[in-house]
């Protein structure tokens, strides 16, 4: 695929035709923003794949150019290459690296597509996690209730046996548990 336009002093003009498709799929995806979740995601991912394919083909062109440069250099064996030819080879390796940077830009585009439309699934998963954390917190609270039951049992036992000296301590315990229950605000003990 290496062309004979090696001496082209402005390699950017060669590569200019690789840049417009970078923005094109972006616009397509933007048009699909109001799609339902799954469809928008499929759209984004198919756009992403197009951009990755494009980037891969730019890498391929750079690889071919690199091969061609190495062949040219190898053709000289141990003979010293004239300076003019060396300058040409260096201009070509510059072209190759510029091509690779365009491929990098396309990969960055593709990566941006991947996270497009991920906000919803992420939010839902965070909400679910928060809900589970709240459940865990409530398990903790129910644990306090068990303690409360213990206090009540003590109280009941004391009253049943007429041991009124124990009632004060038992009541105090119950009040403590009640206070604990009230101070446990939603999310205050959620593990994050």
């Amino acid at each position: 695929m290496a062309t004979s336009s090696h001496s082209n002093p402005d390699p950017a003009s060669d590569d200019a035709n690789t840049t417009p498709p970078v923005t094109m799929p972006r616009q397509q995806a933007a048009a699909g923003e109001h799609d339902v979740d799954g469809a928008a995601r499929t759209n984004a991912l198919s756009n992403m794949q197009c951009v990755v394919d494009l980037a891969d083909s730019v890498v391929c062109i750079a690889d071919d150019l690199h091969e061609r440069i190495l062949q040219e250099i190898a053709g000289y064996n141990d003979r010293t290459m004239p300076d003019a030819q060396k300058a040409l080879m260096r201009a070509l390796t510059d072209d190759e690296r510029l091509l690779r940077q365009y491929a990098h830009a396309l990969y960055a585009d593709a990566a941006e597509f991947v996270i497009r439309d991920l906000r919803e699934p992420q939010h839902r998963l965070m909400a679910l996690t928060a809900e589970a954390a709240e459940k865990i917190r409530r398990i903790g609270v129910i644990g306090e209730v068990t303690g409360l039951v213990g206090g009540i049992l003590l109280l009941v036992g004391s009253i049943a046996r007429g041991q009124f000296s124990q009632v004060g301590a038992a009541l105090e315990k119950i009040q403590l548990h009640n206070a604990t229950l009230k101070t446990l605000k939603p999310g205050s003990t959620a593990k994050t």
Partner: protein
Amino acid sequence: MARRVLVLVGLLVAGCASTGQVSLGEVREFADASVRLGGYAELSRRYRDTYERESPYLSPQAERVARDTDARRRAVFDDFVAIQKTLVLYMQTLSLLAGDGRYDLSGRIDDLGTGLKAMTDSGLQQRHVAAYTGMSRLLTRVITSRYQNRSVDTMVRDGNADVQTLIDAMIVLTRIYEKANENERKTVLGLFNAEIPMANRNTDRMLVTLAKVHLQNKTAEYKLIDRRYKLAQQGLTKVALGHQKMRENMDKLSSEETRHMLAGYVHDLNLIRDALSGE
């Protein structure tokens, strides 16, 4: 008053149906192994820092394009990492919820038992102590076992689709990181492959030697990192599969077959983690 208290206790107990023990140990181990996996965050950072490594090898013209791409990589880095953070948080919470002993209130029950025993000495009958302790144990079991199991079930069922979407995104991103890394390797090593054969003047000898040493080191570096992309992808695929299987087998979580299957995923994830951390 004593009657009101008894009614309250009765209500508390009536709300709790009896249930069998369900083991969530494998679910917890799977969630823990998923949290510990590693790889993705490190490779995301490596992707973000591509320009830093590449810039010495770039021509001014390529450098201009590279700087622009660098700014874009940095702009989305937090979003890339947020996906993983969401997943880690989800798995940590799942692990907490599936934790067998985490909410075991037996210590508390024992305290209660001790308290009641003291009461026995002062008149409460042994059978009362046994009854109260038994009732509290039932309450605890319902809280710690059935309730948690139901929550784990809800979480896995409701979370699975989004978990799959996020892991899929992480796998796709890791593939893009891998491609970008390959492109970077060719940029860096390619320069030396072209320049070294052209530098054959006597005065170039020292420079060529240094360049060869540098090339050797860089080749080794890329060879090491190459493996990590594949390992990270394998690990993420295992997490996705394991969660999917857990979702499908939620109703028979205690079966030997399901537990064995989940243990298999845990084993594989640990092997991948060891390979990732063993470099």
